[in-house]
């Protein structure tokens, strides 16, 4: 069973180099503040610039909450992240959904940005595994999800 990937494309008025840098090194400056799983708001979102690097948010008190890791790193052409935030909004090291972002110069000073979030069926498989191991796990998953979306 597969679920259609989420694919987004947009054009930005910036070079691939600047777009790549802004996307990765400055992620905490544009990432929606409400889209977080830490106990307190983040002051930075860190993507360690190498294959195997960690991807995490850091709170004002220095607490770090993992989001995933870097699977491919090819500046300024693109990178692949493992998005390891599960459907119940917790870091799950066994979850390996992938986010690939590519930057392509269009020749007029702008850059085409393509983002693909794929292997989404893994959310279901992990949720099913959790439901199998915890009584009522699914209800909790759905409720957390609804709380999050509503909040």
């Amino acid at each position: 069973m597969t679920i259609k990937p989420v694919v987004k494309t947009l054009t930005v008025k910036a070079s691939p180099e600047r777009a790549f840098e802004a996307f990765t090194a400055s992620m905490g400056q544009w990432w929606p503040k409400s889209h977080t799983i830490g106990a307190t708001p983040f002051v930075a979102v860190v993507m360690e610039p190498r294959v195997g690097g960690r991807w995490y948010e850091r709170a004002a008190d220095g607490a770090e909450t993992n989001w995933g890791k870097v699977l491919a790193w090819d500046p300024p052409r693109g990178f692949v992240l493992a998005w390891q935030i599960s459907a119940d909004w917790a870091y799950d090291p066994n979850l390996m959904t992938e986010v690939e972002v590519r930057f392509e110069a269009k020749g007029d000073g702008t850059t085409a940005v393509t983002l693909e979030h794929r292997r989404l069926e893994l959310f279901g498989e992990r949720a099913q595994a959790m439901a199998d191991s915890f009584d009522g796990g699914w209800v909790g998953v759905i409720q957390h999800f609804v709380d999050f979306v509503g909040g």
Partner: protein
Amino acid sequence: MTNASRALAALGDATRREIFEQLAVGPSSVGALAARLPVSRPAVSQHLRVLKEAGLVEETPEGARRIYRLDPRGIGAMRDWLDQHWDAALAAFKDFVEQPEEPTA
């Protein structure tokens, strides 16, 4: 209506929540569910249809019976959320990357 609010609405009914929790324990037929709950078979079928439309359960034929189980794609709600998340995040990214570079101090 998003998948999430459909799921919430579907689970807002106590009997449907009970059916959903029964299926969380394991797949089941309409008859077996009706035997475990103080609800008629037609009522169970009706509730299952709502849960199915909300993307929470799926059915597979097994001989003359239909077996119901939790639909791992109920997580389609997760996909909806991600779809909106990336729209919002990428719009914010575009604003950020297109703003004039601040002079370095």
